[in-house]
């Protein structure tokens, strides 16, 4: 492994933060500037949203199921199995739905964006696009950011619902609970704050997934090896970033809504 001086490391880090911030800011600013690439946004929405549906459905369903299964033993010990619906509902909507959907989409799409854009960089397609008078930031990055934010919001709702269905299947099929009891408690416990918290997070995570994926792709260097490296870094960075932002967003929203 190559050793670099602390000064170089600090410079590289500052440069990375600066370049990432610039890309992230530009992706938003470009929303208000012409040309806008609606066709590209739709295409990306299809790739990101519809393409991620199977993994999101499976993840959501089995997360809800396993959450119900694990919680049931503890709840049974206190004679509170009737609260299972509440537990699955709050757990999925506030936390597990957004985070796990974010992580799954990060694994699938952040890497996809990094490898696609990285390949375009190393084969000079990005330079060719600029040479042809088209801004790659507007044509390639903004549509990916918009589509990811938009689609992750709906994917999270689907994941939440599937999680509740998974929990319900375990509650009814394995634990012998009354399905009406499960669904009514799951529904009644949810407050506006829970739903709001669960739906703000995918907006933040979608932005992280797309901007981190695009950033590592567009800054890929060093041929196919560089593209591979960018892909790995994109998944790792976006996943870690999602978990970090999740903590701070939860803390902030809890403070705003007066949770203790």
């Amino acid at each position: 492994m190559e050793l670099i001086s602390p000064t170089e490391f600090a410079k590289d880090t500052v440069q990375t933060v600066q370049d990432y911030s610039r890309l992230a800011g530009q992706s938003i600013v470009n929303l208000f500037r012409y040309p806008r690439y609606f066709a590209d946004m739709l295409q990306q929405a299809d790739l990101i949203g519809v393409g991620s549906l199977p993994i999101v459905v499976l993840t959501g369903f089995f997360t809800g199921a396993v959450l119900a299964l694990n919680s049931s033993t503890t709840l049974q010990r206190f004679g509170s199995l009737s609260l299972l619906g509440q537990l699955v509902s709050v757990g999925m909507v506030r936390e597990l739905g957004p985070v796990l959907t974010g992580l799954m989409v990060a694994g699938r799409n952040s890497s996809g964006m990094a490898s696609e854009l990285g390949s375009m960089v190393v084969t000079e397609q990005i330079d060719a696009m600029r040479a042809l008078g088209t801004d790659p930031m507007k044509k390639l990055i903004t549509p990916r950011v918009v589509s990811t934010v938009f689609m992750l919001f709906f994917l999270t709702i689907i994941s939440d619902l599937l999680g509740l269905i998974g929990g319900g299947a375990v509650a009814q099929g394995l634990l012998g609970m009354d399905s009406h009891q499960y669904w009514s408690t799951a529904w009644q416990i949810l407050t506006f704050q829970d739903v709001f918290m669960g739906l703000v997070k995918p907006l933040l995570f979608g932005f992280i997934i797309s901007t981190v994926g695009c950033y590592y792709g567009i800054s890929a260097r060093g041929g196919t090896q560089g593209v591979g490296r960018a892909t790995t870094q994109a998944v790792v960075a976006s996943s870690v970033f999602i978990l970090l932002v999740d903590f701070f967003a939860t803390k902030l929203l809890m403070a705003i809504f007066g949770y203790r």
Partner: protein
Amino acid sequence: MAAPPTAIEQRMPSQPDAAADIVVFENVSIAFDDNRVLDGISFRLPKGETKAIFGVAGAGKSTILKLTLGLLKPDAGHIYVLGDDVTQMSEDALFELRRKIGMVFQESALFDSLPVRDNVAFRLLEEGDIPEDEVEKRVREALSFVELENTVDKLPSELSGGMRRRVAIARAIITQPEILLYDSPTGGLDPVTSTTIIQLIVKQRDVYKTSSLLVTHRLQDAFIMATHYFDRKANEMRPLPPGARGEVPMAFLILRDGKVIFDGDAKELAQSKDEYIREYIA
């Protein structure tokens, strides 16, 4: 071993003449990390002329093309393209300027997810206000120029290296730009395909009078261009009549160690006394 490089004396006016000079480099320097690739180079590309740029690998030939397009910014100096100083322009302003310039990249740089039609039409489709019929007509014209009309629905991966290079030329010329930049258009191609590409470049030079910068390793390609013209009637490249050398707008520029060591026509190149140049053209 050749003698160390001596930069040629530059006779650059204080202000470039935008009408006569399409591209002007003034004391341009650029370094990548600690490697100074171009060290205060100056040259000009007069209107209608094709200038072939030579130099060993890493001499900065492709860098000159990227600087001309504003894809790279120099560390020092000024670059005037069609009268505008690209070193002082914003990225948005550069996008406008680049619409007047066509570039053929070293490895073609075709968009691999788009069929040939969309690659060639890319610039027209981006402009947005051109009717579909018109786009189709111009794509066919551009592909017919490079004799590849039958590839319109193919993906770049289905084409040979030479065909990809020709599609890249079609993409570059579809809007009839004022300047064309060719980055090693014949690199890695067989002699027959190379001659086809050179014929297309000569056709563009002699029929459309487009000014161009041509980066190449192959001296023979540039000499063919300097000794041939495009016969419109016969629709092919023909040798210049004896004694007519120098009649075509063709110049040579040789780089060495970041400096321009030669800038002149084929006749001056052949008469050069510089040991390195003589060795280079031998």
